[in-house]
């Protein structure tokens, strides 16, 4: 599957969650498959911290590696591009074609560096909303992603309740935990400590690669589990028979971390790493609300939430917290903790079970296509037909009525 990255520039001001503004904004994005006639088969895939718009396929036949989630996106795969129109865009703040700290600041004619405003997951999603609109899609069949991609998927349902029919949320959370913030702060400190970082002003000079490599190494540790590390490396030595009693590389695990740390510096911008981890830290859907459940009032999407048993970066308890908030709102939510030894990486690797679940779940969302009819303003007879086809339409109304009744009773007793 050969794909090309496309670019769209919005000469339009984005008011960020922080209150700052950003303009103009370019998004790099790729699409796969074909949008159907009634534009109802679009799925937005959101990438995690280090991802980009290139989710699947190759840019040219000579490409050594396909996109970052090629196992899950493509013909006949979990997100079947023979059936669905798949979109993936690079987040703002990123460094793979979308506007970020390495982009040119129109006011100075030089790269932004730290003059780039701090963005949040909600800001990223806002601009994705512009892209989906520009592509002429009134409502997404689904939005999906793992880790920070899952945060965007959840944010979508809250930011645009009328424009998304389902969310498939993998290894994620509705609010970033203290442990996750800590595991973002230490990598940031590694970048700050690199003298080449120079307060973010290093474009055109030697970048802070040493700091960024250490940051990536810490990331890689958090993506694995104790079991997967033991099985992958154990105490095996790297290219030597016995301990060296020196500070060269002894163990395979050291070699692995160094390799991935260094390789990362070739494709990623240290400032983008700072901005994106900050966006993750700020993610908290309960912010400014009485509790997390309140964030999902009026959310209409159906949810498939998956966690992975050995994931200690976004452990199952965090997905369960999200699911509780959804169920308290009567939202149609399916939750599953998948047994896996791959740690946080499991969301990228356990594609077989994901494929099965996603296919079944999406088939149901398509069947119970009531939301789409209302989102596109379907005519009255259309809606009637829709209701006959899916008794769940009237169900939903009754369900919500019961909920509000339960709520008012609670308030009465309180």
């Amino acid at each position, binding site marked *: 599957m050969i794909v090309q990255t496309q670019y769209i520039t919005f000469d339009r001001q984005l008011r960020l969650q922080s209150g700052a503004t950003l303009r103009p904004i370019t998004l790099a994005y790729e699409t796969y498959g074909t949008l159907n006639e009634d534009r109802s088969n679009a799925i937005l895939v959101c990438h995690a911290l280090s991802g980009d718009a290139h989710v699947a396929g190759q840019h040219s036949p000579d490409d050594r590696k396909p996109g970052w989630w090629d196992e899950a996106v493509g013909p006949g795969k979990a997100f079947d591009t023979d059936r669905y129109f798949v979109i993936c865009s690079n987040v703002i703040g990123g460094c793979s074609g979308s506007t970020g700290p390495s982009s040119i600041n129109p006011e100075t004619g030089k790269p932004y560096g730290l003059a780039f405003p701090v963005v949040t997951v909600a800001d990223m999603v806002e601009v994705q909303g512009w892209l989906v609109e520009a592509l002429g899609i009134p409502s997404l069949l689904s939005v999906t992603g793992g880790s920070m991609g899952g945060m965007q998927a959840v944010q979508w349902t809250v930011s645009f309740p009328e424009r998304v029919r389902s969310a498939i949320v993998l290894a994620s959370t509705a609010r970033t935990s203290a442990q996750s913030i800590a595991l973002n702060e230490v990598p940031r400190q590694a970048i700050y400590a690199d003298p080449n970082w120079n307060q973010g002003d290093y474009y055109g000079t030697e970048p802070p690669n040493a700091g960024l490599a250490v940051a990536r190494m810490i990331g890689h540790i958090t993506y694995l589990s104790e079991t997967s590390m033991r099985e992958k490396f154990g105490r095996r030595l790297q290219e030597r028979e016995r301990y060296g009693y020196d500070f060269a590389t002894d163990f395979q695990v050291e070699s692995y971390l160094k390799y991935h740390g260094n390789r990362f510096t070739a494709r990623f911008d240290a400032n983008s790493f700072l901005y994106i981890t900050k966006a993750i830290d700020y993610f908290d859907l309960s912010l400014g609300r009485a509790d997390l459940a309140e964030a999902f009032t009026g959310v209409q999407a159906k949810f498939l939430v998956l966690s992975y048993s050995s994931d200690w970066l976004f452990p199952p308890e965090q997905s369960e917290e999200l699911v509780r908030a959804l*169920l308290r709102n*009567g939202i*149609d*939510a*399916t939750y599953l*903790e998948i047994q896996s030894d791959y740690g946080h990486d499991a969301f990228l690797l356990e594609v077989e079970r994901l494929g099965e*679940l996603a296919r079944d779940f999406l088939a149901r969302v398509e*069947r119970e296509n009531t939301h789409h009819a209302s989102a596109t303003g379907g005519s009255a007879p259309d809606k009637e037909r829709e209701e006959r086809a899916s008794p769940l339409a009237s169900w939903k109304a009754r369900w919500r009525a*019961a*909920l509000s009744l339960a709520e008012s009773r609670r308030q009465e007793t309180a």
Partner: protein
Amino acid sequence: MSLSRPDLEVIVRMVPEGARVLDLGCGDGALLAELVARRGALGRGVEVDEANVRACVAKGLPVRHGNIEEGLADFPDGMFDLVVLSQTLAYLNRPLPVLQEMVRVGRSAIISFENAGHWKARWRAMVGDGGGTTLASGQPRVRSITLPQFREALQQLGLRVEESVLLCGRRRVASWPSLRSEVAVVRVTRV
């Protein structure tokens, strides 16, 4: 289409048209799928086994993976018309809090369980085979529940029986139920 287990057939008949039903320990979703198809119910489930949850998703049922002794806290009061616990009560570590939760999230609860007071069970115990499953069978621990025991638990929790069906095979038992019924299906609600 009919369900293989006679108690499930009784449960389907107990569920009114269009009810909101939560099935605890819903397994592969066979009962829920039946309730959706035959009763137009809005079905939700809680299930502890991953493969079973996947089977439910394949049937188009929204299910929360989890332990029913913890997972009910996710549901608000009075969210369901009925909460079903079919042949699972005997396997719970702490069954009473689960029964209490069932009538919190549902207006009524339907519970089915094997009657450990059935004459065959009594005979087995008398000839020295004990109650419940044998050690050698390797089966998980099962509580032996008799009809009087169940009534006592309901009384303690302040629950009232709305309807009860006692079965021997697929037939209803009228006389000597404590000895003759193999399975009890009981719908209860708060007094």
